[in-house]
């Protein structure tokens, strides 16, 4: 399996994403924001960081990068796409995922290890996990408050598009329904605020993040 890891000016977690994919047994290729040829790529990661300085609104400018056009086509064909943190914000701004991310309720940047509960969504990224399972990965963001207007939120819940919720009492940002990550209707596009790519080495305790990166290869095989 070969992952394409997107890189915008201002991305900063792309190397960790590559490392996570490689530890999960895959190969990776960095894809600069102006590349549009995704041939040979089996999955896409839109990594964390501060794309285009997060000017105007987080993720707003990155949605117009040429590579994002190619990612939208890739996603429409069913290719697995994972957006982490800023990548989640970019996928929401692009309309590939429902909802939006707002400044944390407490206004502060948060950075700490926390627990997520796997929800009911069906996705290749969740193929190694079961609903109710708890994983421990870092929370690290300032604009992570998940929001969707009431009708959209209802639809997301009714379609089982919630991928992860913050464990009880651990919602760090005021996200609606404790939502930490969602998938598109088909399940092949996933976004989440916490960072599975930072939880892949026993040196930093939890290696739970690896499960997400191994998932799509299991489905493929």
């Amino acid at each position, binding site marked *: 399996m070969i992952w394409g890891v997107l890189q915008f000016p201002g991305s900063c977690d792309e190397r960790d994403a590559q490392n996570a994919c490689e530890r999960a047994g895959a190969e990776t290729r960095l894809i600069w924001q102006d590349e549009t040829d995704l041939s040979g790529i089996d999955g896409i990661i839109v990594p964390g960081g501060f794309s285009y300085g997060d000017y*105007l*609104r987080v993720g*707003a*400018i990155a949605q*117009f990068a040429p590579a994002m056009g190619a990612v939208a086509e890739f996603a429409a064909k069913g290719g697995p796409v994972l957006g982490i943190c800023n990548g989640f914000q970019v996928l929401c*701004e692009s309309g590939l995922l429902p*909802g*939006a991310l*707002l*400044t*944390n*309720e*407490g*206004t502060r940047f948060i950075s700490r290890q926390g627990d997520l509960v796997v929800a009911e969504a069906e996705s290749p990224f969740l193929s190694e996990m079961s609903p109710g399972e708890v994983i421990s990965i870092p929370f690290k963001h300032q604009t992570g*408050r998940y*929001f*969707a*207007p009431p009708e*959209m939120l209802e639809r997301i819940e009714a379609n089982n598009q919630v991928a992860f919720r913050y464990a009880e009492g651990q919602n760090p940002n*005021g996200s609606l329904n404790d939502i930490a990550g969602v998938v598109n209707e088909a399940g092949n596009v996933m976004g989440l605020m916490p960072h599975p790519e930072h939880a892949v080495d026993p040196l930093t305790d939890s290696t739970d993040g690896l499960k997400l990166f191994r998932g799509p290869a299991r489905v493929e095989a």
Partner: protein
Amino acid sequence: MISARVLIRPKEGILDAQGKAVESALPALGFGGIEHVRVGRIVELNAESADRLDELCEKLLANPLIEDYEIEVL
């Protein structure tokens, strides 16, 4: 060329964390009696015509899920 000013603000009913932070700092600075502070932004621009400003706002300058906008052609 026309000049335009676009005012973008958080939708009513959505918690505006930035506005809340400003509001909660006011008493310590000696400003009493101020409430419902909301922080938005203004984008000023020149354009050949006003025809596509709505589309520009919908696609980039504002996120219609969370923000309202008003276009003022100057």
